[in-house]
């Protein structure tokens, strides 16, 4: 197997930063300070805290823009900022630095930009929540951790950020902790993420064991100079993939993501659609130099992506819960990204889709949140209908997001998804045919369930529950929605002018260079449009022409039942992971009780008992103290004299 040759990629050698570029720590500091301040000041900041948090996030965005401008002006677009060197003694050393390069810059802009919009949205959405200060503190915490994740210049720093966003995500999913389902969902997310984290931490350990280093510079340097064997690279690549699957909701660890919709909707938009769940894509894109060495691992990434995108869009057809549909569409879209990021040279395409997806999915989630806001927090689409007149702005935004996600020509999804399908076909042989066709068909299915969502929510008859009075949301909510909608409409067009976006990323991610296409791009575009029309048309026939029943039909095909049951993947996870896990746990508990616990409690009892016994020496009488001093002196004397006697 020959190593894959990427064109345009530059050796990973960031230069030391100076001037403005030496200040990316400010990006971390602002939201981190916000989180700290809001949590520490307690109720005192109930009033101004949310505004401060929003302002700080906005400040981080402004600073990101400044950094972006500075980075564009730089010849070396990859700078390293050494922040902190933690050197106890001897050979043990931990350094923390920040890496600002085109890839991390894209993420920083996305995180702070979308993050700021969602902060603003939350001001309206959470206005009446008594715990909104905590909510904003967690949001700020998330932004800080996510920025550390993408800015860290070593796998270790990345890991810290990784755990940080996991924590923020856990806290926010269980924000309504008094709801049983929210608590369970948070637990599920936590455990699925733990499984992934084990992979990531093992990958870091393997790196440390084989290379003695975890910084990107050293790891990639070793990879580029052949210091890393293919076997080790493959092992690291697969372990990183496990981590990425956990965080990004990829098969088979994807089941936590739809459940995570129990969190407040802004959280779903920011964390579980636009940013955090794409961390896995970032991890793999960042590790491009490693995957260059490990073609097998890269292939597995693509395969996982394909499986997930199919699963996501199939299950997306079966749900009536608007947020769950959007969640499964997220799973499926990230599947597209994984598909692309695993194809050598196509990582930049994946990042492009990641950015456009960030816009349109956040837009759709916020619109869904707006719908829920007006419908007393209901999520069942069978209780919606005919909302387009009641909520015109929301409808317009949702439509923009919808058209973007289904790949309507010249909207953002059209550019990015098309490119992914193209690169999927461009792979040689059966691989290209299978992956390309699957991606293409899945685009049609996406069009189907998204059209279904639109029709059930905004068209048809009113199926509202009695007492619900839909109304448009306040400006603080619609404002961000409109901005995101503009991004969803125009983002793809603007980013792909003159291939600016892809060229910006080329020094980091490389391209596959000139290839002769299996199918001409124009044909692919035409085919996707055909699939779009087919999918949307079917949905219209099924849900637009006919009345939507208030309750889901019972007599359905086994296929639908399966989809409604998440394709039995929860059951699969349960059977494959949970049951053996439980048995293992039970066995371990048994062993623990009998063996380890016995030893530990014996030890503890021994310590306690020894302590109590020793305590009796402490009589409180000064005479016995003096005696102990005297006895000790005698012993020391004896010891020295005996040692002296030359034993």
């Amino acid at each position: 197997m020959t190593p894959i040759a990427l064109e345009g990629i530059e050796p990973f050698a960031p230069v030391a930063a100076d001037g403005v570029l030496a200040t990316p720590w400010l990006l971390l500091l602002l939201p981190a300070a916000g989180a700290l301040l809001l949590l520490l000041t307690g109720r005192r900041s109930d009033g101004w805290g949310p505004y401060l948090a929003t302002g700080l996030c906005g400040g981080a965005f402004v600073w990101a823009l400044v950094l972006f401008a500075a980075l564009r002006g730089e010849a070396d677009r990859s700078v390293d900022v050494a922040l902190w060197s933690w050197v106890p003694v001897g050979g043990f050393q931990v350094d923390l630095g920040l890496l600002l390069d085109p890839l991390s810059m894209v993420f920083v802009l996305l995180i702070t930009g979308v993050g700021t919009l969602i902060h603003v949205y939350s001001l309206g959405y959470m206005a009446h929540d008594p715990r909104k200060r905590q909510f904003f503190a967690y949001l700020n915490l998330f932004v800080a951790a996510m920025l550390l994740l993408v800015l860290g210049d070593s796998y270790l720093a990345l890991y810290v950020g990784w755990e940080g966003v996991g924590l923020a995500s856990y806290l926010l999913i269980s924000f309504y902790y008094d709801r049983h389902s929210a608590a369970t969902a948070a637990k599920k997310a936590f455990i699925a993420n733990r499984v992934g984290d084990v992979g990531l931490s093992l990958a870091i350990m393997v790196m440390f064991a084989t290379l003695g280093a975890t910084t990107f510079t050293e790891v990639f340097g070793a990879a580029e100079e052949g210091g890393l064997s293919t076997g080790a690279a493959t092992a690291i690549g697969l372990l990183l993939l496990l981590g990425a699957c956990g965080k990004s909701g990829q098969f088979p660890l994807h089941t936590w993501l739809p459940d995570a919709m129990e969190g407040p909707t802004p959280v779903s938009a920011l964390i579980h659609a636009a940013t955090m769940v794409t961390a896995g894509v970032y991890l793999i894109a960042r590790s491009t130099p490693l995957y260059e060495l490990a073609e097998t691992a890269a292939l597995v990434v693509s395969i996982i992506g394909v499986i997930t995108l199919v699963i996501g869009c199939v299950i997306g057809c079966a749900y009536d819960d608007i947020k769950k549909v959007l969640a499964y569409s997220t799973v499926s879209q990230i599947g597209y990204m994984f598909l692309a990021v695993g194809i050598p040279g196509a990582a930049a395409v994946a990042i492009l889709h990641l950015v456009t997806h960030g816009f349109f999915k956040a837009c759709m989630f916020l619109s869904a949140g707006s719908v829920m806001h007006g419908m007393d927090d209901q999520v069942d689409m069978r209780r919606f209908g005919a909302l387009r007149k009641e909520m015109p702005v929301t409808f317009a935004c949702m439509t923009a997001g919808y058209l973007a996600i289904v790949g309507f020509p010249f909207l953002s999804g059209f550019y990015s998804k098309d490119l992914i399908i193209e690169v999927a076909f461009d792979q040689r042989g059966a691989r290209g045919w299978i992956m390309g066709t699957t991606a293409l068909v899945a685009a049609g299915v996406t069009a189907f369930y998204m059209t279904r969502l639109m029709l059930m929510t905004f068209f048809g008859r009113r199926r509202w529950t009695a007492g619900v009075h839909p109304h448009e949301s306040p400006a603080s909510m619609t404002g961000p929605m409109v901005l995101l909608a503009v991004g969803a409409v125009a983002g793809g067009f603007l980013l792909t002018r003159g291939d600016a976006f892809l060229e910006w990323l080329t020094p980091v991610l490389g391209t596959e260079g000139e290839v002769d296409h299996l199918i001409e791009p124009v044909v692919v575009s035409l085919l996707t449009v055909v699939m779009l029309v087919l999918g949307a048309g079917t949905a219209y026939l099924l849900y637009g022409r006919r009345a939507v029943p208030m309750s889901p039909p019972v007599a359905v095909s086994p296929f639908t039942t399966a989809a409604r049951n998440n394709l039995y993947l929860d059951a699969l996870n349960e059977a494959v992971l949970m049951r053996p896990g439980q048995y293992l746990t039970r066995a371990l508990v048994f062993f623990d009780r009998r063996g380890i616990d016995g030893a530990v409690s014996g030890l503890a009892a021994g310590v306690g008992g020894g302590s109590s016994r020793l305590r009796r020496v402490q009589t409180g009488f000064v005479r016995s103290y003096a005696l102990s001093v005297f006895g000790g002196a005698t012993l020391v004397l004896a010891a020295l004299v005996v040692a002296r006697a030359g034993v």
Partner: protein
Amino acid sequence: MPVDIESVPVAYSAILPMLLVLGAAAVGVLVEAFVPAARRRVAQVVVALAGLVGGLVAVVALAGEPDRLVVGDAIAIDGPTLFLQGTLCLLGIGAVLLLSESSLDSSGGDIVSSAAALPGTREDLRLAESQGVQTEVYPLAMFALGGMLLFPASNNLILMFIALEVLSLPLYLMAGLARRRRLLSQEAAVKYFLLGAFSSAFFLYGVALLYGYAGTVDLGGVREATLLAQDDDLLLYLGLAMLAVGLLFKVGAVPFQAWTPDVYQGSPTAVTALMASATKVAGFGALLRVLYVGVAEVRWDWRPALWAVAILTMVAGALLAVTQTDVKRMLAYSSVAHTGFLLVGVVTLDTDGLAGTLFYLLTYGFTTIAAFAVVTMVRDSAGEATHLSSWAGLGRRSPLLAGTFALLLFALAGIPLTSGFTAKFAVFQPALDDALPLVVVGVVASAVTAFFYARVVVLMFFTDPAPDGPSVAVPSGFTTAAIALGAAVTVVAGVVPQPLLDLAQSAALFTR
């Protein structure tokens, strides 16, 4: 008969830190004599802080100069001396700040105005409520600190003994000055005095025997005598053992630790903070100098004994702390365990070990002072609420204070990113090569100590508060400043320890 008395040149600039601190103490005495009672307290605080800050500045100014022996080779001005003197000045500032706290206790301070009253008498009850404060505590503290500054700098055993007494005598008195729980406080003072005198006798006897061996009380002279490797050096070992007993008593090593819990518990908490941090720093400074300068050449003969003491100290300190139910006693036993960890650094007897020990002393001192400062703030109607059960649920009532205390406990337990971890690493790492068993015992003992620190944290944050539990008093800026100083050093030395480690490393050379 004409007597030849050699005049010894006194390098005043080199001993300026000590002169300033002791001078401030003398001025403090004059303030007691001549300043009207109403203004004494302010004047004393100003004088004491000025003396300590001046001492600190003088230490910093001396830092660039070459190492040397001054005053007839009796005082060594070298890296360890200056490092420890600087540390002591800073810790002294913290302790003086704590002594100056006036808003925690309803009566205006934790120092009683007339310590000689019999506990339980009407006079005693009146004193507990009176507003009077014994301002003599400031000159006493300054005298003690002056002695502490001299103690690790003494290159001469007689001078070292004088320093020992100068630092001890004021502490005996100060132990008895607690406003609340007078009986415990007086008991502490008497116990500390009796046992301290007892151990001083050992020290002096050791000095006499060493003089008998070497014919001089200069540590350099003792070293030269050991180099001659005479056969009849029983006197050396007897003397060294006696001397070591005196010093090990001061730092609270097992089996000379019995006084620690009683005295720490009975003393006013501000005084306990001074004892636990500064006395330990000074005592270890002197111990290091005796071992490194005086008897390093015969280390193979005394190291086993010190090994045994270190192991005993770590194990007994950690074990005994487990069943304590009083915060101050728990901290006292933890201080015993820390003495054991420090001894690991001491017996290493090389530059790395010395640097680690110096670093440990500094960080431990600050963490301890802040920890005791937190103890002063948790109060009920009878004064400080030191029983652990009354600390339950403190995290709910006062998250900031409980969080700070948790941070300090984590540092004492040696959790990474606090100074405690770096410090333990710094003393254990150099010992790995030739004192592996000590390191193993040290790590196990650390684990045991972590258990009872964690227990307090759990108690504070995960237990429901008692309905009639103590309240957290709002302190004045003094206590806040002391806690902030200690906590800041604890965090900074844990997160970016390198500058401080470098400083300790560059200071880790004794002059002979």
